């Protein structure tokens, strides 16, 4: 009975591991972002899909980039900090202030992503989910509430259309 109920319930979140990673995300973020404590955080990722054709072998490659995404409601600012799935370190932050960006919107197709164009030259597409099980590719963190809050902020106070 116990075995089958577990089998049909599907994968469950290890909340201890999730909380530990949430703390690490906070430590990393506060380390590189000034006044980091005033930002709420979620984990997001970017996907870079490129096609290749090496003669008789061709297909597509996907590169995943992990991000700690912070948002400050009062300042209408989103900060993206690159990191790695084990959260052993992070790169420099990039700031996206609503007053300075070109446009921002939520994309539904081909993937559900929060898209920010800082200028005409490039864009950042942030993919975010409640929880992703693959620890080799993504940060293991459960973030249902935080993602709902970020979505609300993005759609109602940050998006430009």
């Amino acid at each position, binding site marked *: 009975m116990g075995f089958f109920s577990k089998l049909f319930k599907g994968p469950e979140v290890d909340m201890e591991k999730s909380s530990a990673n949430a703390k690490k995300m906070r430590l*990393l973020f506060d380390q590189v972002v000034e006044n980091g404590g005033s930002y709420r955080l979620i984990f997001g990722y970017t996907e870079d899909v490129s096609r290749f054709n090496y003669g008789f072998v061709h297909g597509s490659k996907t590169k995943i980039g992990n991000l700690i995404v912070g948002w400050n409601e009062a300042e209408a600012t989103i900060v993206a900090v690159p990191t790695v799935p084990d959260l052993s370190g992070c790169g420099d932050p990039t700031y996206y202030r609503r007053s300075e960006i070109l446009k921002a919107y939520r994309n539904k197709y081909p993937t559900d992503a929060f898209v920010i164009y800082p200028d005409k030259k490039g864009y950042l597409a942030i993919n975010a989910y409640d929880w992703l099980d693959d620890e080799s590719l993504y940060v293991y963190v459960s973030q249902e509430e935080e993602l709902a809050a970020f979505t609300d902020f993005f759609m109602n106070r940050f998006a430009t259309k």
Partner: protein
Amino acid sequence: MSLGALGAWVLVLLAVFLTGRLWFRFVESILDRIRALLTRHREPPAWHPLPQEEDKEDPS
């Protein structure tokens, strides 16, 4: 189709698959080396390691 012919066909498919994988790895390694040569003078992006949490246990 006999069992032997079926096995031979599976072996052919396996050989094609493995050759493809090897060719992919080979071309990727060459491209990686070219990229490394072209970007050797570029500074690596800044990286900040996770700060170690100090154990702040009460001595009493």
